[in-house]
């Protein structure tokens, strides 16, 4: 019998946006919803939102639409969650950021490094005697490309942030909050 969770063909990337109160333990509560369904969180970002004192979780998952709908329903049900949405990649504008720490000698000795920096549209954040730090913002594959290019020269440290995304359509949170307050 083909179960829903096994429908490999129907899996897609989804960005889940969660507007919530800023409260202790909510992250645990939300991540538990994924855990219970044995679904991996591919990336997670928590920040403030466009509304004062309202937090925003941006969660990326690779799963079926049935599952993402189920998850968003459960997330939204949590008391401190104001509203949760899910969107496909086409419906969002999304970015990730990465930092590369590389030995300073490379900057001066390897001409190619300069080209990589220019071509990748990354910025030099800091340069010290021993190392310099490159920052790159973009789609995940762009960051992956840059990683591959720098790798032969030696990357001292690398980190990539979770996806951040805004949607092309509106997410009506303020009016929702007003409605709740009535």
């Amino acid at each position, binding site marked *: *019998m083909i179960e829903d969770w096994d429908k490999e063909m129907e899996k897609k990337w989804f960005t889940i946006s969660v507007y*919530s*109160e800023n409260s*202790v*333990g909510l992250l*645990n*509560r939300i991540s*538990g919803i994924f*855990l*219970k369904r044995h679904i991996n969180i591919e990336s997670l970002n928590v920040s403030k939102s466009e509304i004062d004192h309202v937090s925003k979780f941006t969660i990326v998952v690779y799963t079926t639409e049935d599952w993402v*709908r*189920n998850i968003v*329903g*459960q997330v*939204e*049900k*949590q*008391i*401190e*969650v*104001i509203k949760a949405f899910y969107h496909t990649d086409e419906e969002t504008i999304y970015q990730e950021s990465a930092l590369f720490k590389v030995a300073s000698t490379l900057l001066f000795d390897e001409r190619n490094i300069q080209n990589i920096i220019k071509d990748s549209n990354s910025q030099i954040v800091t340069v010290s005697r021993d190392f310099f730090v490159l920052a790159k913002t973009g789609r995940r594959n762009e960051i992956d490309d840059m990683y591959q290019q720098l790798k032969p020269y030696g990357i001292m440290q690398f980190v990539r942030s979770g996806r951040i995304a805004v949607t092309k359509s509106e997410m009506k949170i303020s009016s929702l*909050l007003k409605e*709740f*307050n009535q």
Partner: protein
Amino acid sequence: METLKKEKTASTKQSTKRISGAEAIIHCLLAEGVDLIYGYPGGAIMPLYDELYKFQDKLTHILTRHEQGATHAAQGYARVTGKVGVAVATSGPGATNLITGIADAQIDSTPMVCITGQVARHLLGSDAFQETDIIGISTPVTKWNCQVTKASEIPEVLAKAFYIAKSGRPGPVLVDITKNAQIDEFDFSYEHCKGVRSYNPYPKPDIKAIEEAANLINAAKKPFIVFGQGVILGEAEEQLKTLVEKAGIPAAWTILGLSAMDTDHPLNVGMVGMHGNYGPNLLTNECDVLIAIGMRFDDRVTGSLDTYAKQAKIIHFDIDPAEINKNVKADVAVLGDSKVTLDLLLPMIKTNTHESWHNEFKKKYKIEFDQIIKNDVYPTKDRLTMAEVIEEINIASGHKAIIVSDVGQHQMIACRYAKFKQTKSNVTSGGLGTMGFALPAAIGAKMGAMDREVVAIIGDGGYQMTIQELGTIFQNKTPVKIVVLNNDHLGMVRQWQELFFESRYASTVMVNPDFVKIAEGYHIESKRISERKDLKDTIKEMLASKDAYFLEVKVEKEDNVFPMIPSGASVSDIRLK
């Protein structure tokens, strides 16, 4: 005494008064109308127990014999009263012992507030004695939980806890209160919670959806209602009955919906699900409109989803938006409190009878009666059956008892055969299937409905999971009637082993103690019977007793519960043997 009274009025008047956090907890409970709580003391909750001692004339605390018992008792109380059940425990092991009951309340939507003690704020995270992360542990099984580390936070958090537990789709809430917060003093005042801005417990009914539902129902040739606990929680029993009668729709129940409608009502066609009735299961796949009211299409109800009611238009009434399209896609979803939405629906419904469709159910019932029910309830073999015991209780109680069942074959038999006239009368662990639920739940049910007969139906296996609660019954002189249907097996698992594991009875044979002696040890009147000739009189004697009564009935050891939809099979493949 006089001073106590003054304090009570002071708290309800919401004037400010400097008191300890522990005393504040008491005033919060009183302000929420709580007069009975269940629990077990220990170090981190001792300040609260000291206040409970002082306020014992206003707030009764029942000492259970295990914290799990406290949760199930609170659940039993909540299920028969519709009020919030309260359970209290200390930190660490006391708190972790609550988890099974909390998980049970979560999946069965039972309003409950659990209060746990916690080590002092400055010790959090130090692996102090009896420190455990109960917030972390309880998060996936609570509707909401919150840790309080300051006395002054207590009133607001508890007010919110009660509001959340009871409103919308009810559920368990846990409030973890550090010891310093119980001891420290602050200026107390109390205000009921009237809303939480990020929480919308009562979705506004959508008139369009209700109209669509009415149109579908009015045009239906073979409409079929399946109702669940949402009818009981929403107190929409009258509305359901009116709908059923006005539109002439056969109605079946999930085990948590049982007792929302008189079991003898001519249009009540029985139970759906794995061990439900033949007609309602089979005809699920023949109806043209399936009207689900306050039920959540649990897999034990639907069997395989690929073959569940595919021919029917589905109308789903539910208060919880997350239930819509979760398991079964709804053609029309009506969100909201069942009473409100049904009230809006009723005037749009046309009178109808659907006689020939109803006759389909009667025909199927006849088949089930001849092949199963007759042998269950009126057996000709020597050994007693579980069903005839239930039937005797029906007769002797006049369908008026509250039946609290545990988990296993006896539960399915109790739910199949118990008769009810009154709502909130069937208390069982449906979603979690928690063995050990019934004995403590019966204590809570009795305390919540002292004027009613409460009969617990328990298997020999599950009984021994919480048997220590006989101590609670003895100490509080709680007049519950306890019936153990002893088949000397973990019967339900044995049945599966017989049917699906070629009768390899791995660890399902029970060598049981002398249950009567155990009950006698607790000074509870008790009796064991194994012959049909003793059944009627003993049941009468049990129900006539003003005190607690324990009855062990030795029943056939290897009986099976039928009909049965094997796990993962279609409702159409329901087996009669």
